[in-house]
C-alpha cells in the first residue's frame, strides 16, 4: 500500500509512529454516506472500526455503481471502497435475537457506536442507546438521523438533497432572480459526518476526565441549517427571505464565475478591497470601462454588478482559465478555474496535497481512493487497510476479539446469524 503512511508497520512501539486514535474501537452501523464517513474519519485517524452489515441488507453503497469488474458485486462497489477503507467488516442479521446479543458483546469491548438509521430502527431491534448503555455504561453513541430523535418529523425519510431542501439550503441555490435549482448532491452527509466526529471526540475527552459516556442526537437537518446563519439572521432580524444566490456575495463585486476560451471552461474571480480592484484593473491594462464612475467604488460596483460581469467576461472569454489565473494571481487577485473531478486529479497542487492514495484491493489492483485532508505534523493519519469484503473479519472479530470458538462461529454462520 502506498501513500503518506506506507511505513506505518515500522516501529509500532514508538508513539511517534502511532496514529492519534489508536486504541479506540468503533462499531459502525453506518449506511450510505453520513454514518460511513464518520467511521471513515475515525478509522483514517487510527481507530479500529468494525462495520456491521448483513447479506440480507448490505450497505446500499455495495449495490451502487461503478463496480470494479463492471458488473454488480457487493465487494467491488467503488463508492463503497472509498468510504469504508480502514474498516473491518462483520455480517450479522440483526433481526435474529442471537445477533443482537453478539452486538451487545461487541459494544461491551468498544468505545463508540455510530448509526444513521431512522430513529425507530435500532429501538425495534432492541439495540438503542438505553439498552446498549446498560451493557457498556461509558459508551458514546452518535445517531445521525435526518430530523433527530424527537419532534413531529423524527421519522422522516429523506435523501441528501431532500434533506437539504428541508434545511433551507436548496432554496438559496439557483441563478439570482430565477427558479430554485437545488444542489443535486448531498452536502448534508459529509457536513454532518464531520461534525459528528467533532462531537464524538469532545464526548471522549469528557469521558476521559469523568468516566462518563453519553448519547449524541445529531439531526443532519439541524447541522446543515447551522451553516446558513447570514440568511437565517436576515430573516429573524429583518424579516427578509433570501432567494437564489447564484455566485453573488452581499459585499463583494466582482464576485463571479466567467466564461473562458475552451469547452465548459470557466474562471472564478472575487475582489474584496479597493486595493485589489486597482490591481485587477491594472492587470487588465486599465481598460477605459474600468475607470468609469459606475465601477469606481465597491458600492457602485455592487449596484452595477451585472454590467461589470459582462465587461469582465468580454475579457476572460478570449483567454483560457489558466491564462487568466496566472495573470491575476501574479497581481494578487483571487482567481481560480472552475474545476471538474478530472481537473483535480491531474492538478499538481492537489497531487502534492495527497488527494489520491493508491491501494490494492482483491477486486482492483492499484485502486485510487481519495486521501485524508487533515495534515498532522506529528501523528498523521492515513490509509493502512483497503475496504473490507462483506463479512471478511467475522473470524477475527468473533474469535479473537470476543473469544468465541471456531465451531460456534461456524454454527452461527450456518444458522444465518452471522449472515
Amino acid at each position, binding site marked *: 500500500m502506498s501513500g503518506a503512511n506506507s511505513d506505518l508497520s515500522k516501529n509500532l512501539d514508538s508513539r511517534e509512529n502511532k496514529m*492519534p486514535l489508536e486504541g479506540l474501537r468503533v462499531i459502525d452501523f453506518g449506511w450510505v454516506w453520513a454514518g460511513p464517513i464518520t467511521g471513515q474519519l475515525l478509522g483514517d485517524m487510527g481507530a479500529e472500526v468494525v462495520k456491521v452489515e448483513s447479506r440480507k441488507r448490505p450497505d446500499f453503497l455495495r449495490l451502487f*455503481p461503478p463496480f470494479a469488474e463492471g458488473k454488480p458485486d457487493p465487494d467491488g462497489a467503488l463508492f463503497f471502497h*472509498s468510504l469504508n477503507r480502514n474498516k473491518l467488516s462483520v455480517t450479522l442479521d440483526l433481526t435474529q435475537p442471537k445477533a443482537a446479543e453478539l452486538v451487545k458483546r461487541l459494544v461491551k469491548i468498544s468505545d463508540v457506536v455510530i448509526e444513521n438509521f431512522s430513529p425507530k430502527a435500532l429501538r425495534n431491534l432492541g439495540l438503542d442507546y438505553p439498552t446498549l448503555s446498560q451493557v457498556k455504561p461509558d459508551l458514546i453513541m452518535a445517531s445521525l438521523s435526518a430530523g433527530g430523535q*424527537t419532534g413531529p*418529523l423524527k421519522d*422522516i*425519510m*429523506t*435523501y441528501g438533497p431532500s434533506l437539504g*431542501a*428541508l434545511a*433551507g439550503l436548496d*432554496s438559496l441555490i439557483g441563478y439570482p432572480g430565477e427558479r*430554485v*435549482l437545488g*444542489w*443535486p448532491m448531498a452536502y448534508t452527509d*459529509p457536513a454532518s459526518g*464531520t*461534525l459528528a*466526529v467533532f*462531537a464524538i*471526540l*469532545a*464526548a471522549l475527552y*469528557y469521558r476521559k476526565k469523568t468516566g462518563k459516556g453519553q448519547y*449524541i*442526537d*445529531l*439531526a443532519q437537518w439541524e447541522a446543515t*441549517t447551522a*451553516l446558513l*446563519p*447570514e440568511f*437565517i*439572521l*436576515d430573516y*429573524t432580524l429583518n424579516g427578509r427571505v433570501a432567494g437564489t*444566490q447564484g*455566485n453573488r456575495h452581499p459585499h463583494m463585486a466582482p464576485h463571479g*464565475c*466567467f466564461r473562458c476560451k475552451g469547452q465548459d471552461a470557466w474562471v*472564478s474571480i472575487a475582489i474584496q478591497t479597493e486595493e485589489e480592484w486597482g490591481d485587477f484593473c491594472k492587470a487588465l491594462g486599465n481598460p477605459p470601462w474600468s475607470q468609469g464612475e459606475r465601477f469606481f467604488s465597491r458600492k457602485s460596483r455592487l449596484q452595477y454588478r451585472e454590467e461589470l460581469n459582462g465587461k469582465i467576461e468580454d475579457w476572460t472569454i478570449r483567454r483560457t482559465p489558466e491564462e487568466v489565473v496566472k495573470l491575476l494571481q501574479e497581481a*494578487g487577485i483571487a*482567481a*481560480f478555474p*472552475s*474545476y*471538474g473531478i478530472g481537473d483535480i*486529479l491531474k492538478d499538481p497542487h*492537489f497531487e502534492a496535497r495527497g*488527494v*489520491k492514495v493508491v491501494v490494492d484491493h482483491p477486486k482492483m489492483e492499484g485502486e*485510487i481512493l*481519495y486521501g485524508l485532508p*487533515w*495534515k*498532522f505534523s*506529528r*501523528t498523521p493519519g492515513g490509509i493502512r487497510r483497503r475496504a473490507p469484503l462483506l463479512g471478511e473479519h467475522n473470524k477475527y472479530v468473533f474469535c479473537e476479539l470476543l473469544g468465541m470458538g471456531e465451531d460456534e462461529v461456524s454454527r452461527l454462520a450456518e444458522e444465518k446469524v452471522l449472515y
Partner: protein
Amino acid sequence: MSKSALAGVQVLEFGQLISAPYCCKLMGDLGAEVIKVELPPSGDEARRYGPFPGDVPHPEKSGLFLYLNTNKRSVTLNPEHSAGAKIFLDLVRKADILVENWPVGFMAALKLDYQRLKEINPRLILTSITPFGHAGPYSKWKAYALNISHGAGVAKGIGSPGREPLAPPGQQAHFFGALNAAAATMVALWEREISGEGQYLDISEADCWAMLFNGVWYSKYLYAHEEVTRLGHRSNLPVYPWAVLRCKDGFISATAAEEAQWQRLIELMGNPEWAQDPRFEKGVKRSQHADEVDERLESWFASQTKAEIFQACREKNVPFSPVQDIGEVVECPHLQERDYFVKIQHPKAGEVTCPGPPYKLSETPWELRRRAPLLGEHNEEIYCGLLGYPPRDVVRWGKEGIL
C-alpha cells in the same frame, strides 16, 4: 466539575470572518474557554458583514458576527508591535489550542509560526485553516470562498447546462473548512491526553472539499469515465425522479432512489395510465425520459401546495420534501419543538434569534453561556486578571495602539 464536554480547555482564536471563528464557536459552545484576539482598531471583518438590524451597519450588530462568536471573550491586540507580540506569547503559554486563518506567511512574518510557539508551549495544538494549505504550489495564492468552491470541483455540479457553475451559498467553503478543522483539532487534543505533546495541523479548505465532498466521485471519473455535470434542477444519477420540481406554491425536492418508492408514488397519484408506459418502467429509463417524468409529476403537483404534497407523501412513505425557504425553516414546528433556535440578548443589537445546538448531547448539553463579545470587551479581565499585567500598563498599551 462543570457538565461541559470541553470544560477547562483553553482556546485562543486569532483570525477573522468564518472559518476560525466557527471552528472555535463549536468548541466554546461545548464549554471550552475561548479568547478571541481581534486586531485594533476595527476587529474581526465579520463585524462589517451583517446582516444588521434594519440594515444599519454597526460593528456590534452584525448578525454573522453575533452568531459566530458566542461563548467567547474578546481582546484587542496588535502582535505586529513588539510589545503586542510578547503579550500574544503570554496568551499562547496559557493555551491548549490556537486556531488561526490568516493568509500563509502572515504568522511567520509576525514570528508567531509553529516552530517558535512550540518552544514556549510544547503542548500547544496549532490549527491553521487556509484556502490551499501551507504546502503545495498554490499555498500562497489568494482565494475567497467562491474560488475555493469552484477550484475544488464543487461548483461544477451546480447550475444549468451551458451556464456558469454555481458555488454553494453563504461562503460555504469556510463553513466546511471550519467543521473539518474542529474535528481534526479534537483528534489532536485526544492524542495529547495520551502523549502529552501538541502538534501542528494544516487544514486546507480546498482539500476538504476535494476529498471529503468530492472524493467519492473519483471512481466514477476514473473507472466509469463520467465527469460531474450540471443538469439544472436534476442530478446526473441513473435514477429518477431526483430533481427539484414546481408545485402550486413553490418547489418539491422529489427524490426516489428505490423502485418501491416510485411504485408507492404512482399509487398515491391514483395509478394513472401513463405509468404503465415502458419509458417509465425503471429508474434508469425514467432518467432518460426525465422531461416526460417532470411534465407528469408537475401537472399533478400544480394543484397542490408544498404542505399538501409533503403530507400525502409522508403517509405513503414517499421520500419527497418541500423546498423550505428560510422563513419556513425558522417557523418550522419540528425545529421549534426541538428548541433549535435560541434567543440571545445583546446590549447593542437587542434580541437576536439564531440557530442553536447542531446536536443534542445527553450528558454535556450545548450551552449558551455568553453572547458574542463587544470589541475588546474583556481586555481588562484577560490582561489584568488572567495574565496579571498592572492596569496602568494596559491603559498605556491601549493609548499606544497595541491593544
